[in-house]
């Protein structure tokens, strides 16, 4: 076996040969090396091997992000698709992912492609309610509901440490028929929020939590959007949005129980 005998003792210039091969030497260094290499069989052999290695790697080895991975990633992050890089076809992501207005500075082709996309509202026009409902719907897609799967609030709460810059309150409401299922990180209004996942019978309740100015108190307000109920309130320096397809009264109960549970 000849493993690394070049580097180990065959010739100490081998790594320089490689550096030249990789375009890392300046002209003076390269000239110096060329003089040495003319009389060094080890370096010439190394050069041949480098060429072989590169030839091996000529194949189609690059792993660009597949469209489905991209769509899921952007949807989870609530981001619009990037401006297309040159020579990459325009990607259409779900309408939920594209709540930021597309930028049309990149030509007609993209404008045509945009005609295929659903018209999207600017963030200002789209209320937080819409966003939490969109976040809830996204999370219902397979495998995306919880990042931390636990019915124990002492597991769920620390999970947010270091992932988010506030400590969301986590309550276990199993005695009230709303068992905790887990939690995840979500993005609402362009900033990270904690999403706690509860269950009522077969229904999932997402509770989005983010900090608000201390002293802000908002009594529960119930709205409905695309068949989902949303109850929003604020207490103890946190704003809450509970989103679910459970009946409106049950969701109100959930909010009321949460509010009075220490």
């Amino acid at each position, binding site marked *: 076996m000849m493993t690394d005998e070049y580097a180990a003792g065959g010739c100490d210039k081998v790594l320089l040969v490689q550096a030249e091969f990789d375009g890392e030497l300046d002209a003076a260094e390269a000239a110096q090396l060329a003089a040495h290499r003319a009389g060094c069989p080890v370096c010439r052999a190394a050069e041949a091997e480098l060429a072989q290695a590169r030839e*091996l790697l000529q194949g189609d080895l690059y792993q660009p992000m597949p469209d489905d991975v991209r769509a899921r990633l952007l949807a989870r992050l609530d981001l619009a698709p990037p401006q297309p890089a040159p020579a990459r076809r325009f990607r259409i992501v779900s309408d939920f992912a594209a709540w930021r207005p597309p930028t049309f500075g990149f030509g007609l082709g993209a404008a045509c492609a945009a005609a295929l996309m659903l018209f999207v509202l600017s963030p200002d026009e789209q209320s937080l309610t819409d966003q939490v409902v969109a976040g809830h719907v996204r999370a219902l897609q397979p495998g995306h509901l919880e990042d931390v799967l636990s019915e124990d609030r002492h597991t769920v709460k620390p999970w947010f440490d270091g992932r988010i810059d506030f400590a969301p309150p986590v309550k276990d409401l199993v005695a009230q028929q709303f068992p905790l299922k887990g939690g995840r990180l979500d993005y609402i209004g362009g900033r990270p929020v904690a999403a706690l996942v509860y269950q009522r019978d077969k229904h999932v309740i997402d509770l989005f939590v983010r900090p608000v100015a201390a002293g802000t108190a908002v009594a529960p307000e119930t709205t409905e959007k695309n068949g989902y109920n949303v109850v929003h309130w604020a207490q103890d320096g946190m704003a809450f949005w509970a989103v679910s397809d459970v009946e409106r009264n049950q969701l109100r109960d959930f909010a009321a129980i949460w509010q009075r549970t220490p």
Partner: protein
Amino acid sequence: MAASAQNQSFEAVVLPHLDAAHNLARWLMRDATAAEDVLQEAMVRALTYFPGFRGVNPRGWLLQIVRNAAYGSMKLNRGIELVPIANGEENGGAAIADLPSGGDDPETSLIKARDRSHLQQLIGALPVELRETLVLRELEELSYKEIAELTRTPIGTVMSRLWRARRLLVQATSEQRKAS
């Protein structure tokens, strides 16, 4: 992307480098699902850190976050091993030698060696430090300096890792040819 990232949106600065992020995550994790989980984690971190990003190299910045997330995940999931390479030059050769070599005639085995999936296997069998250096150099075409910064490794180590990675690949394919 020469302009400072200041005043530019995350979408404009970071998202053009998603392919690079995926390429690195996919090669480090060697598994599509694990790579996607790592990217998810990395992108959440990137969004969180982005307000503080003032650099001019968003690709390197993102790749570093991806790398950290990948190593974190590898440590958590011990099923995916982190192979230390500190103790000698020969590490990784054994893993490569374990790969099926087949009993084909030289021509077939040469074709096989060039076959994409087979080559992927060979690269996948490299110790993670060698693999990431090779991927960053040959597929991302980063400079030695960029790789050194990204992996927090001295340039000399980058050079010797790259050398070892290339040699192991060449040897593995030529041994397979000889064996058949």
